[in-house]
């Protein structure tokens, strides 16, 4: 059970890391448009995707 002394703090760190990742994603505009990008999967398009800036 001693491993819990490591795993519990580690889970806190993980949660914080996930929070930071989402934070950056929101600030990068990834959640600004929830409609259009869904179409990219449906459409046959062999050319490179439009470049996006974070």
């Amino acid at each position, binding site marked *: 059970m001693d491993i819990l002394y490591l795993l*519990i703090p580690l889970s*806190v760190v993980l949660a914080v890391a*996930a929070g930071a990742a989402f934070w950056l994603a929101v600030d990068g505009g990834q959640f*600004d*448009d929830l409609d*259009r990008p869904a179409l990219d999967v449906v*459409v*046959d398009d062999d050319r490179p995707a439009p470049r*996006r800036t974070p």
Partner: protein
Amino acid sequence: MSGAAPPALPGAATDCFHCGLPVPAGAAFGFDAPGGGRAFCCAGCEAVSRAISGRGLDDYYRVRAAAAPTPQPRHDAEELALYDDAAVQQRFAREAAGGSREAALLVDAMRCTACAWLIERVMLAVPGVVEARVQLDSRRAVVRWDPAAGTLSAAIAAIRALGYPAWPYEPRRAAEADRRERRAMLRRLWVAGLGMMQVMMYAVPAYIAGAGDIPPDIARLMDWAGLLLTLPVIGYSAAPFFAGAARSLRHRSLGMDVPVALGLLAAFAASTVATLRGTGAVYFDSITMFVFLLAAGRYLEFHARRRAGLGLAHLDRYMPHAAHRLREGSAVEGEPVAAALLVPGDRVLVRAGEALPADGELESPSAWVNEALLTGESRAMPRERGAGLLGGSVNAGSAFAMRVTRVGPRTTIATLERLVERALAERPRWAQVAHRASAAFVAGVLFAALAAGLAWLTIDPERALWVAVSVLIVTCPCALSLAAPAAMTVSLGELARRGFIASRGHAIEALAAATDVVFDKTGTLTAGRPRLLEVVAFRRRTGVHALAIAAAMGRGSSHPLDRALAAAAAGKPLPRVDSHASTPGAGAEAVVGGRRYRIGQARFAGELHGKPAPMAWMHTADTVAWLADEAGWIAAFRIGDGLRPEAAGAVAALHALGLRVHLLTGDEPAVAHRVAGELGIERVRSRASPEGKQDYVRALQREGRRVAMVGDGVNDAPVLGLADVSVAMGEGADLAQLKADAVLASGSLADLVGAVRLARRTRRVLRQNLGWALGYNAVVLPLAFAGMVTPLVAGIGMASSSLVVVANALRLRGRG
């Protein structure tokens, strides 16, 4: 395209493949493409479709959910060139990474996500464009381009060529704030959600383990981990609630954030103390989940409100950025300028299909304009020299010159937007009642929570805090204070979309409660322009033939009577007129088919043959035009102010809604009774003085009737002010001068009926909302008091009760 059989492409044989309009018979627009031949309604559609095909973007047709807009021919080279001007670009473009520039565009007519995809692809194909993003819901596109490799105008032209109107868009501060708000809410939601999930991981073992199963030091470690992860949730995600509570306490009032903040603080403080001391219960899981539910509720509510408000704002998006300013004395020569630089007195050339850059007066002899954005009327309207023109309307005819009278914030469109904003800002009575009620309610909630806590201290001290927190949270009157604003916002937006601009907060309320509709002035029911009402033929020729002669004699004339005759004879073949001479104030004489005719006043026309005028309409208030030849009288035309085409239907609909309809007018009894009779209005007061009108309205109100008054809003302000709610016919009037609670911008009485219906639906929704909010609290309060509601259930209940209210208000949108 791959070698496999191409998917079946939509589009029936008789409908345009591109825009879905019927293909006219004999049209020869089309080409063969993989998947079958394509037929088009016009060359424009064919060209666009060929371009789409040529770029390998046929997928658009496969995935689109709605037909494309029909491309319109445009002559906008000069306007486009202006957008590349550095000074003009300063207003909407900014520097971006690597020396590139970025601009926001407003793209109209996008109907589904496929449109957005298509536009993105087409823009990226334009030389110099590095990045293009299209947002469907806000109808915006962001384009980043390299000024060294290409121009912005090329990108805009590419969008327009597809048939989507596009302009540079000045991101207003409000829109920017809106985006920041949305992002902050999402971040709060994420933080609370992650915290909730992880804290629950630490809490669950304690719930399912038996006594002594978990070593005490591990249990303490998990409490500490829970505390650590709850800190950002309380400190960041819940910050708006604490800020709101602090704000309302500073103003010595009890807002709805107070009980929420209090409950959170109490639970958090107790849990933290228990963690530090190592004994006692911790509630971190409940706290984080509650904050998450609150944040989710606020986020969804924000979305719903934004959607509701979207129709209201941005009326001025139709204002063009560029204008063609004419040089003094010239009718065609000039230079393009930014629309913002125009000043009253400037002369501007508006080409076919262009939007008017400002309010103004027509300088050319005539023009056709489409004022759909203001009135909802999609047909083009004729205007004559000197007539007022509205900025943002579209030139539907050929090019014309106009003199600018009002620019920028003084234009009609900008005024309208301010009127609507004022109505939104004013709290109508029912909203004030709800607001006051919720303040009293909060006090009651605080008291109830205290009482519950004290009571449970004697019953079961372990659960006292827990019950008090549940009571605080579950009975928060969020739904109560949201009930009215949500319904009002949606309703105002929906009304504005239909051409009914409520400029006062109480307009909807009073309109819903109205029992009597009083039309002030006959002019509110009549069209305001002469129309042929009746023809009497004195010979055995038909009236139609006489009408053809009369209309032919007045062809090309701008005299109102001639135009009324011409309008009545529209579409009929007119005989050729050989010689024509008009005598101002009397009539006209002409030779038609070898015979000499006169039309005009009885004396003038009678001189041709010398016979006495027959008896006809001796006591009419209308104008009578007589037609005669050398042998005698032929026909007489009664021309007068005709009824609005929709008036009869509107009056009948008002009757059907249970409203009494009155006509109050200063006109002669003959005219008033004719109008009232044709419309089925029973209550008529003619030859009424302004004082008489006021007495009439007061008398109605003394009987307990609620009066809605419809007038022109300009010189009948006193009597309009007396009515419970006043509606001004906004056709062509200066809206800023109108003294009315609401403006019927469409000028159509049918929209008045629609507004009454919507106002009544709004009232119904509002009552449902208030009933729901009160009922919810009445049910959950005893439950929470009895300790049967956990803080978690309390959070869910509170958030969903608010959402129900907003969702109910959204029902007001969109339906007939």
